[in-house]
């Protein structure tokens, strides 16, 4: 069979659903709007949470006796919020204009790398600093209480407070570790295999003998 005959066979396939163009168009517009709305709501909620947390910490800091742990906790939370807001406002590599297949594959690899970086950063740049800030809040509160109640009462209650910190620390640490582990799992089981698949396609594009 010559290639023209194959072209003829190939281009005369039936459309299984015989889709109406207007209906397809309506579906595309509706789904695009739904997606944009979902992304906008997610972004606003995350941004408002970051701003709210910062404002909340600032307000609490004005109420408590200002001690160094409180100031450090407020500074850490503010830093985390600023990093978060900056990352949210930065356009993702996926929003770059489309191009040829080579460019598309390179962009897709960049996007996966971006997601890997973000997931890696969650534990290091968001959760761990916030956990440190939480511990500093407890320490700051304890120092404030010590000043208020005097040395005798403080000596009696100190053991209980230290026990509470001893409980809180491993719980916070375990939570950070668990989220980090979940993220590492997503990276290892989904993102890295996808990246390998994309890199293999890019290699195939340059070297025809490369296998998928």
């Amino acid at each position, binding site marked *: *069979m010559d*290639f023209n005959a*194959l*072209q003829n*066979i*190939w*281009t*005369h*396939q*039936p*459309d*299984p*659903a015989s*889709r109406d*163009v*207007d209906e*397809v*168009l309506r*579906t*595309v*517009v509706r*789904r*695009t709007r739904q*997606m944009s709305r979902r992304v906008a709501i997610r972004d606003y909620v995350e941004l408002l949470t970051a701003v709210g947390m910062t404002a909340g910490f600032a307000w609490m800091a004005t109420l408590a006796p200002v001690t160094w742990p409180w100031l450090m906790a407020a500074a850490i939370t503010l830093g985390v919020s600023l990093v978060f807001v900056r990352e949210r406002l930065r356009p993702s590599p996926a929003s770059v*204009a*489309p*191009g*040829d*297949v*080579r*460019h*598309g*594959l390179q*962009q*897709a690899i960049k996007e996966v790398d971006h997601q890997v970086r973000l997931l890696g950063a969650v534990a290091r740049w968001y959760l761990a600093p916030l956990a440190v800030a939480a511990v500093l809040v407890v320490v700051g509160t304890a120092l404030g209480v010590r000043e208020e109640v005097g040395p005798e009462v403080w000596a009696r209650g100190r053991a209980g407070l230290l026990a509470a910190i001893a409980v809180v620390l491993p719980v916070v640490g375990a939570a950070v570790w668990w989220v980090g582990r979940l993220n590492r799992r997503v990276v290892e089981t*989904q993102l890295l295999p*996808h990246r390998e*698949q*994309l890199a293999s*396609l890019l290699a*195939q*594009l*340059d070297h*025809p003998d*490369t*296998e*998928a």
Partner: protein
Amino acid sequence: MPEHEATLRRWLTDHRGILIRISRAYAADPADEEDLLQEILLALWRAIPSFRGDAKPSTFIFQVALNVALSRKRAAGRRPALMQMDWTLEPSTDGERAAIQRLEWTAVLRALRTMTPVDRAVLLLALEGASQQEIADVCGISVSHAGVRLHRARRRLSAILEQ
């Protein structure tokens, strides 16, 4: 937005077949074909503002559709392509001629799906009537490279179909 809609309407009217055939060539089964087609349509809608008109709409559509088909994550747990549900097994109510055509294009589809995704893209473009220059533009390779690839892929397709 109306201009945006008019562009997509025009493209769908003129090139809907291309989108369906690309989805079919890269989908694991008929259900996945529908998912892939929707992903391509959404990508096309988002890509419309970047269409400057310096390339043919079909070239632009090929680029967007192939980018989606090649870059999407292959669903875990799906069976390998040749083990999938066969399109020819769907009940057919059309006549004998149509049934033969259906068998023929299913054979071509099956042969295409044994190839690497990149060779499949090159052959798909050739089957859709794209020139070597257009294949090179869509894939981002040189014209001579496109020619070599196409020659090898065509030979392989013929060998598979003759078996």
